[in-house]
């Protein structure tokens, strides 16, 4: 064994590598991005693992599933809202089952550090009726992920590992296998089962669903017996906690007190242990990160007679936002002493577009081109350009989900709104902007679509994009955008007048116009400037 300082995300990734996966699949999304990136780095060095960004989470899941069917272990990682996109294959894969181990890592974002909601992925696990691991710390992120592959293959089911931002983006010492301790195996394809299992025509599907249902007691028993779902019965006050919330409980109690404690590490819930604890205690505090998943089940419709159940539903802990050690300690009645009060009159410091960002120039052009229309609607999408909602631009009127802007614009145009514009990044467009654009093109929707092509996935740290530059233009034509209403602008201060003119022209055209604002992201540009000389030298030495 050796000890490494790893992010929660990196611990997951390293576990997958040590589990001899054949491939990793993902679309960038905070806080899950680093899982794939870590494996990608490893893959680049060793060439043993296939690791390429996918166009979106659904594609990523399906690629992973395909690899699993083919007999290799695969990992697919995404942020919580990414699973909404991948929900279709995910739910169905529980019926088809897997061949090589398939582990889905979902990183939730309680507190919405970088997300549009704080949905709790444990519901998806329950919905699909598959096993879920919920690690509390980086060590468990490593251990559980390795175990998840075993469990996946043992039960022939996809397995979810549920992470949260705080764990994903926090480092700690992790005991990991040394290189020579990594078990061999799983690098060959497993034999393929009957393909009828994977073909969910009704007859097969009914059979496979019954199989999933019959698996449930097996999973229940597995979870029940797992030592990580640890129960300690002492005092009459009980605590049920799961995932990262367990750390806050430990921090608050600091080894003191005689509360009985059940720590939940896997789902389906270890119900017997819960019953034991509830039977033993008069008051049970449920501490969990995310929605009150456990607490709700404990309460049911009527609650538990004679017992006080405290948690997010009771108001002991906040229903929204991220847990903090202080909130947990207060809920447990052992608040931390705080000698200095927080200062609340400090000027805020919101994020902003980078200095020199091409989007800034695009927004300036949009503002000037739409100045004469006070009723302009601008639908936007997920990416850096969502920051156009902040001063000084205040130009953005929506940000709902990946790829939504074009379809929403189309909808608004059908309601008779004018002018209707939408902005979408090149990567978001590839993720899920193409399908709505095909529809808008067929209908010749009276909208102006701005594709902000900065040639990268900027928001999540400059990952590779799917279609950019001339390729993107060809793609747009292929989707049915008429060439005469497809314009390119270069968002630069010196081109401002020209950009405004192009935009005005597009707005005046009562039909579909697409404007591609082409300029590389200032961040990747900066990095390229720094890195180029080295890259050149490498190329020169490659040459014979």
């Amino acid at each position: 064994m050796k000890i490494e300082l790893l992010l929660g995300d990196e611990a997951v990734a390293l576990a997958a590598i040590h589990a001899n996966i054949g491939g990793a699949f993902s679309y960038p999304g905070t806080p899950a991005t680093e899982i794939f990136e870590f494996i990608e780095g490893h893959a680049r060095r060793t060439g043993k693992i296939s690791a390429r960004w996918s166009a979106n989470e659904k594609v990523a899941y399906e690629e992973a599933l395909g690899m699993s069917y083919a007999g290799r272990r695969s990992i697919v990682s995404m942020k919580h809202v990414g699973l909404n996109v991948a929900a279709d294959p995910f739910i169905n894969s529980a019926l088809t089952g897997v061949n090589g181990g398939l582990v889905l890592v979902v990183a939730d974002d309680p507190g919405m550090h970088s997300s549009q909601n704080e949905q709790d992925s444990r519901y998806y696990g329950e919905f699909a009726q598959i096993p879920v691991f919920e690690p509390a710390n980086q060590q468990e992120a490593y251990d559980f992920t390795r175990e998840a592959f075993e469990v996946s293959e043992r039960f022939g089911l996809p397995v979810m590992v549920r992470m949260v931002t705080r764990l994903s983006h926090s480092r700690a010492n992790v005991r990991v296998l040394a290189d020579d301790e990594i078990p061999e195996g799983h690098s060959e394809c497993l034999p393929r089962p009957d393909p009828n299992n994977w073909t969910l025509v009704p007859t097969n599907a009914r059979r496979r669903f019954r199989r999933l249902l019959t698996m449930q007691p097996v999973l229940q028993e597995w979870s029940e017996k797992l030592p990580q779902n640890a129960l300690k019965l002492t005092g009459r006050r009980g605590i049920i906690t799961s995932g990262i919330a367990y750390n806050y409980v430990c921090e608050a109690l600091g080894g003191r007190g005689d509360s009985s404690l059940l720590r939940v590490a896997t789902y389906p819930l270890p119900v017997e242990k819960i019953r034991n604890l509830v039977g033993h205690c008069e008051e049970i505090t449920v501490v969990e990160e995310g929605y009150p998943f456990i607490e709700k089940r404990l309460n049911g419709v009527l609650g538990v007679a004679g017992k006080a159940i405290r948690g997010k539903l009771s108001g002991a802990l906040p229903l929204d936002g991220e847990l903090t050690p202080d909130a947990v300690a207060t809920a447990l009645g052992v608040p931390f002493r705080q000698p200095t009060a927080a200062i609340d009159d400090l000027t805020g410091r919101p994020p902003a577009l980078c200095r020199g960002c091409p989007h800034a120039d695009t927004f300036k052009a949009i503002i000037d081109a739409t100045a004469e229309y006070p009723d302009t609607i601008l639908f936007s999408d997920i990416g850096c350009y969502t920051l156009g909602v902040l001063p000084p631009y205040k130009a953005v009127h929506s940000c709902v989900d990946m790829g939504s802007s074009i379809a929403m614009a189309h909808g608004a145009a059908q309601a008779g709104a004018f002018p209707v514009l939408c902005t979408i990044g090149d990567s978001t467009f590839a993720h899920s902007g193409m399908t709505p654009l095909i529809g808008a093109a067929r209908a010749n929707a009276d909208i102006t679509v701005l594709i902000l092509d900065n040639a990268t996935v900027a928001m999540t740290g400059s990952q590779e994009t799917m279609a950019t530059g001339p390729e993107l233009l060809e793609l747009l034509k292929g989707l049915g955008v008429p060439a005469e209403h497809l314009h390119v602008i270069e968002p630069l201060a010196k081109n401002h007048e020209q950009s405004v003119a192009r935009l005005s022209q597009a707005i005046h055209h009562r039909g579909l116009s697409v404007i591609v604002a082409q300029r590389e992201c200032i961040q990747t540009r900066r990095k390229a400037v720094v890195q180029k000389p080295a890259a050149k030298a490498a190329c020169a030495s490659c040459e014979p």
Partner: protein
Amino acid sequence: MEQNLILAGVGGQGILTIARGISTVAMRRNLHVKQAEVHGMSQRGGAVQSHLRIADHELFSDLIPAGRADMVVSVEPLESLRYVQFLSDSGVMIVSTNASMNIENYPAIEQILDRVAAFPRHVLIDADRLAKAAGSVLAANIIALGAASLFLELDPHELEDAVAEMFAAKGDKVVQVNRQAFRLGRNAAAAYRDGLQRGGTSRAVRSWIDGLGVEDLSGPEPPPPPKFDDVDLVKNRLTGAEATAFERTLLRAYEEDRRPLYEHEVYMLVELLGAISPPRYVFVPKDSLISREALDQFPGERVVLKLVAQDVTHKTEADGIVFVPKDYETVRRELERLVARHAHTARVAGVLVVEFVERTQPGFGNELFVGVRATREFGPVIAAGLGGVDTEYLATKMKPGIAVAKACATDTTAEEFLELFKNTAAYDILAGRARGHRRIVSDGELLRCFRAFISLARHFCIDRGAEGPDVAELEVNPFAFRQQRMVPLDGRGRLGTAAKRPLPRPLEKVRRLLEPRAIAVLGVSSTAMNFGRIILNNIKDCGFPVQHLHVIKEHEPQIDGVACRPTIKDLPESVDLLVIAAPATAVPQITRSVVASGKVGAAIMIPGGLGETEGSEEIEKQIRLAIAGGREQQDGGPVFLGPNCMGVQSRPGRYDTFFTPQSKLDTRWSAAPRRVALISQSGAFIVSRLSNLETLDPALSVSLGNQIDLSLADLVAAVGEREDIDVLGVYVEGFTNLDGLDFVRAVRRIAAAGKTVVFYKAGRTPSGRSAAAGHTASVAGDYDVCLAAAANAGALVVETFKEFEQLVYLATALHAKPARGLRLGAISNAGFETVGMADATIGQDYHLEMATLSDASKQRLVQVLATHKLDKLVNARNPLDVNPMATDSAYEDCLRVLLESPEVDAVVASLVPLTPQMLTTPDEITRPGSLVERLPKLFAAAGKPVVVNIDSGSLYEPMARALRAAGVPVFRSADQAVRALGRYLCQRVQWQQGRSATTDTHDVPLPKAQPDVVEPVKT
């Protein structure tokens, strides 16, 4: 062991690198580590923080519970305050003082630092400065790590090594920079801690550390702190934090591609300068709202709403100011209305909500404006005067210097500027000297304000190269006053590009240009009498040794007895001077070969059409390039006078390149040189003056032309230091970049040496004015500043060509006569003149008094009058009207009495020559006993300044001319004579007083003044 750290900053400041350094070492020590990071959206310039925990036992929470942090380490001061609730009882705040100002309403930086300094355990360090000193501003995070290492239970050497490993991939240089940064940070933190221990205040300790260099802070131990007794250590200077805040405010506007600074930015800047307290203000960006809480914090019942838009400069006129009651709903409504009113015509950034200032004594004259701006010719200037909307009006209607005081900020102390300001009407009112006013501001407050603005001008209104944007203009207009404190009511600033100083010229070559050992002439025609040939002959005729005179010409052995050489390279000796009289188009090539030859010290470029005319810019550019090439040579290369000039007439140098034929202007080459030089941008100006002042016989005349290389200041400096020159007459139209400043400095040196500079500045048209310019540019335009600065430096600034001639002549003639006082003696044979002379004793820029004769003097006068039988006609008093009956000898004797009277410091001897009693016509003046014979002797013997006036027509010109030829300054109008003498005397006496003031302490005796009584002149 357990240590919990909050690391804070702004996205991009590298706080995760700090965390990584600490974690690496902790891991090696087998400690448990928890390090929570922030990724994603918040990194885009937003607030970022990281929780870092290290312990020798298991750690649970990734987040530090409130009250359990041992340190808050912040690379940004405001950000440090966001996390104080985490700090434990014994926790330390380790904070960089450098503000990251990418947000509106960033508070005054020292107020933030005061809040940090209120924590019993804290360290404030100027991480940016130290990082720069270490080699890269990017290393500010490592400075913070070094500072934190002082409180970490980890080995600093291991930490430093971990830093080195982190940067190993970026090369050795980066590693060394970061190692150095670590050490500087650690030592600076230790020094700060020790300084506080020693009893220094945070400001004092930081100020001490600001002055420490890399060598002081990179040793194994921090430097020992001084005693912090000297409070002056921190007075009147920006702290490092303030300088950074200032810089970043400017940078922000610059990066927004905005030249005007917003009013609240100006407030912030002047607030940083100290001594000035802006009213409470909150900037509300467009489409935002002020909070009820923020509004409640405003004192008083009313607030002022001011439009903030870069294209609206005069807010009052533009309907951009609203006074509203301090009621939330009203303010909110008015805010929106104000923005809506202007949204379509201006680039509205938002609205400034400002406290309504109840002032002491509102009303006319009770507002002050103070501004600084960058001028091209004089560098940074400061101006102060009556403020408010009437500033410009008052400035145009009032005498210069009365409405506005102005000076070069680089060369003026706050105390000196206050003295200038005391001459203004504004001061009379503010200091309660005007009737009906009481003092509303103290001199100390004014001094602090001036000091701040001067310091600002010196640091920011200059060409700062890559260091940051230059401030073109920054002013507060007006300041109001409350309780003797200055409160800005409006402010404005603008970024710009300040003038770049050209490379300095090697001045030794200018000295040699004036007295060359060898001369070459290029452009001499062998067939025609062209300019080159006239110049060649003039030089020869002046007596320049022919063996050291050369002509550059191919295919000719000699011209007019002077040997020719085909090229410059072929010269048998190096020449101090090359005269280039070739056509303009040939000059670039000639310049290149001059520079390449290494044989020429200085060159005069005679031809015009080199830059000053349309289409010749390219030629000029090439010449400039060639000259700049020479500057890279070890000796600085050759210097160039001109082009478009007449060159030099040098009597000591025995040469003349002026190409005026002798028949048009008698150069009187045989006359002895007088101790005066004329330096002029225009050659024609010189020859016109020489034609008028036909007996001036200056030792040197220099025509500068376009100043492509040698500038006015170069020549004034070189000529002014010569021992054979006492008086300089200077005419200029425009200065090269910052040459005005150098000129003023040269004048100050020359004047301090007791010499006289008479100065005419052409180009009175208002410059620097535009719709966007502030008041400072309007009331302290380049011309105004030039005159004020030259006068402050001790030049006699004249406004007419006539006055120029008079003063140059007068100063030359009188230089040897000590000027001891301002008591004037006046004599005339006409009553109107004595009255007129008495009337003229007080002028705008001089102040003489009529001497009161002592009884002894009166008695002597009575005797003299009696001798000449004039006692019945003439009263023995000053001014003395000797009556038309006075003869030449009577006049002489009376004049002598005045000259010998100790109560008389200077004398104007005036006469109406139309009297039959005197020998004054051209026939008469040659006879013995005429005043033309008598006066020169009297003048020569006089130990005090004397001027003569002959008010009459051309018939008497020979008399005047004869006297001038004998060295007597002669005027043709009595009032002008008094005025010229008055101006001259005032300047001389001031110098004399300055000298005695400075020599008092040094015990250096003054040159013995002439005896009070002159030797009797024998008749």
